[in-house]
């Protein structure tokens, strides 16, 4: 540990690890982008990286250091003993070498900025390491989040035979034009995905409406009105929120089987709100508590009764919260899979998630499944990105649930 308190130790150590991280990142990115073979070379990364780290801590002008490191990395890359081993065309080889050289030069100098060559103060050492961890963190999280979605979208646009040939080759043949979207087209034409989407949509919207209709009065009462059992009540909301769906699904399945509600969209619309009402109650209750009681009291003094206060004052004020709750509930209903899977058998009544599940079940080509996944994902994503503020608020307010 104490050795790290010297610039000439910390610098090379960070440099070595960092170059390896970069080489891996670029290899993976290039592999996914071109399908060609790239792989990081551990030994070369460590040695070169250590050298780069050492250069970065020598007392020199910043641009000089960047230039030195970049030139160095680039030169070694060209000899073929660089941090990335590739079997690829000369152009992309050159491109990768330049990319790696520039990124490495710039980033290692940025990470080791203000790190002196000699002994480091605790602050200086920790800050360098924190900058390193930050860079690593961004790469790491972005990669783990993006890769699956990238694979999902690209798979849906490729044909299975291409992917079986080379599972890494996600490059698209744009000459195909609209044929790229063949699996989407087939999903809508042959698999009724249009209907499923519509079913999912109106089921989700109805779920939102029913949920609000039940949870607004309930949440208001729990949050604002004094009555015996209020505390117990707000706890049992949380408790209900914790009952696992699969435990309820079984008796619901039985009851629906016996009453003939199984395999009907009505049944789904009846049952979805049950999963969302506790969430909505919980979220709205929190929000109502946060509204200043004086405004409502002002309404009371102004001659309203409680119900009028709720309708004319509380609800308009709670509009952003209602939006958050609605969005969140919409998302839950749209993404719901378990109940749809258990209760719906008839393909003409499927929701979107149930329809996607169907795609998994036979020898249906994989791009269809992924296209289905994309179709199910895009609407929530659009909603989410468009209304991110509400959504995040909704998430933080109500949902430790998953």
């Amino acid at each position: 540990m104490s050795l790290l308190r010297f610039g000439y130790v910390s610098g090379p150590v960070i440099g070595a690890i960092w170059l390896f991280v970069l080489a891996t990142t670029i290899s993976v990115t290039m592999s996914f982008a071109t399908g060609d073979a790239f792989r990081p070379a551990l030994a070369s990364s460590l040695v070169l990286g250590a050298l780069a780290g050492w250069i970065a801590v020598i007392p020199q002008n910043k641009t000089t250091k960047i230039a030195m490191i970049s030139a160095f990395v680039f030169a070694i890359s060209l000899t073929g003993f660089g941090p990335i081993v590739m079997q690829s065309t000369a152009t992309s080889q050159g491109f990768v070498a330049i990319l790696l050289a520039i990124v490495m030069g710039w980033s290692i100098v940025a990470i080791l900025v203000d790190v002196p060559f000699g002994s480091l103060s605790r602050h200086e050492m920790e800050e360098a390491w924190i900058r390193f961890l930050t860079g690593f963190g961004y790469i790491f999280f972005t990669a783990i989040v993006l890769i699956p979605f990238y694979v999902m979208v690209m798979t849906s646009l490729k044909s299975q035979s291409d992917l079986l040939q080379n599972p890494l080759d996600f490059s698209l043949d744009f000459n195909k034009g609209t044929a790229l979207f063949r699996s989407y087209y087939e999903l809508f034409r042959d698999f009724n995905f249009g209907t499923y989407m519509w079913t999912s949509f109106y089921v989700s919207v109805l779920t939102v409406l029913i949920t609000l209709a039940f949870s607004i009065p309930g949440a208001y009462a729990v949050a604002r009105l004094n009555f015996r059992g209020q505390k117990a009540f707000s706890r049992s909301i949380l408790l209900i929120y914790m009952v696992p769906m699969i435990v309820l699904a079984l008796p619901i399945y039985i009851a629906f089987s016996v009453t003939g509600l199984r395999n009907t969209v009505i049944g789904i619309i009846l049952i979805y709100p049950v999963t969302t009402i506790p969430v909505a109650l919980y979220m709205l209750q929190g929000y109502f508590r946060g509204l200043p009681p004086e405004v409502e009291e002002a309404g009371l003094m102004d001659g309203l009764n409680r119900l009028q206060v709720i309708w004319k004052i509380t609800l308009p004020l709670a509009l952003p919260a209602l939006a958050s709750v609605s969005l969140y509930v919409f998302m839950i209903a749209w993404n719901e899979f378990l109940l749809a899977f258990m209760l719906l058998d008839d393909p003409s009544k499927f929701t979107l998630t149930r329809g996607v599940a169907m795609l998994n079940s036979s020898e249906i080509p994989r791009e269809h499944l992924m296209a289905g996944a994309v179709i199910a994902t895009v609407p929530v994503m659009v909603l989410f990105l468009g209304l991110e503020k509400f959504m995040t608020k909704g998430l933080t307010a109500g949902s430790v649930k998953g």
Partner: protein
Amino acid sequence: MNIATPPKGRGPLAKREARLAWSLLLPTITMVSLVVILPLLAIFWISFKPIGLADLRPPAPVLRESLRGSGDDLRIEYRLRNSSQDTEVTDVTIRDTWPESLIVAGDLPSGCDLEGTVFACELGTLEPGFNEQLRVPVALADGADKDTAEDAAEGTKPQVQGNADSILTNFEFTLDNFAKVFDGDEFWSVMWVTIFYTVFGTVGALLLGLFAALLLNKSFRGQGILRGLYLFPYVAPVIAVAFTWVNLFDPFSGSANALLLQMGVTSEAINFFGQRPLALIMVTVFEIWRYFPLSFLFILARLQSIDTDMYEAADMDGASPFQKFWYLSLPMLLGILSVLFLLRFIWTFNKFDDIFLLTGGNAGTRTLTVNVYEQAFAVSNIGAGAAVAVIIFGCLLVFSVFFFKFISREEGL
């Protein structure tokens, strides 16, 4: 001066408020008890009954009528069946109205009578699996056409009644389900898998969320975009991401394997979701991946609400960045971390969809919740499924006791 005591009872304003509260809550209470409390009670009831999927259909007599044959061999056939293979149906009676256009042309089956156009039978008890035909030879009345007669005869639905004991509602109880569940050594492996999955899934998501939150706890351009991006795994439908993972980690045609092979990390394709104990690790990793955004969001919210003054004070006090994290941020986050841990623990414990979609509970990834499904549907033993569900519910109650003990100290979420 006499000691003042509080007045008894509630004042008129309070009473009015309470009345309003209850009437606002009534729909919610009704709904919740209908679809949460009742099912929970039902689960308890069923878990003590020897009941399979097929038993959900209450035993009953089933009757179908048709006019068969032609010319002289014309007959009305009643097919009578006991829907159950193991329960008898008693006091079975049939009533049907015949059209005028048919005339009985032979003996009525025993137990049957014809009064005018009303045909009635008393058939007593039907054995389990009873499936026989009652044939009544008939002739066409003058001028009657066979097709119209057939339509007329089959157009009036015959009535059939009978009594049977339904296993769903009778008072026969058994501990078999629990015995079965606890007996198999399978149960303990399921339990162990559940615990592994829950503990590591929760802790992993928390740690990853903490790391991500620390990363984004400073404002820079693009911070909003990254925050949105990091929430994707949680927001996307589970079905989409689960299948994507299955594809990505497919042993023979998945990109992950291809990548690993190419990088020389492994020389042989790895069957990520089909190999013990890797499959369990993978579903746990998936759980972490999918739910780190939630922890991240909550921790970030908490981080941002920490008074920056405190950090400035620490700056003045000469604390280094790691010291600030260790001595200030971490203790400040302890509350939210423990609340998150408890809640996420409960939710991970309850998780079903993810594992079901990824491995279907195979390759050593069967958790308690997946077991409910397996027992109830794959093996068609609803009673055993219910028993597992009751066990889950029991665990849940224990957790929630912890939770409420704790949350009453930490302010709620």
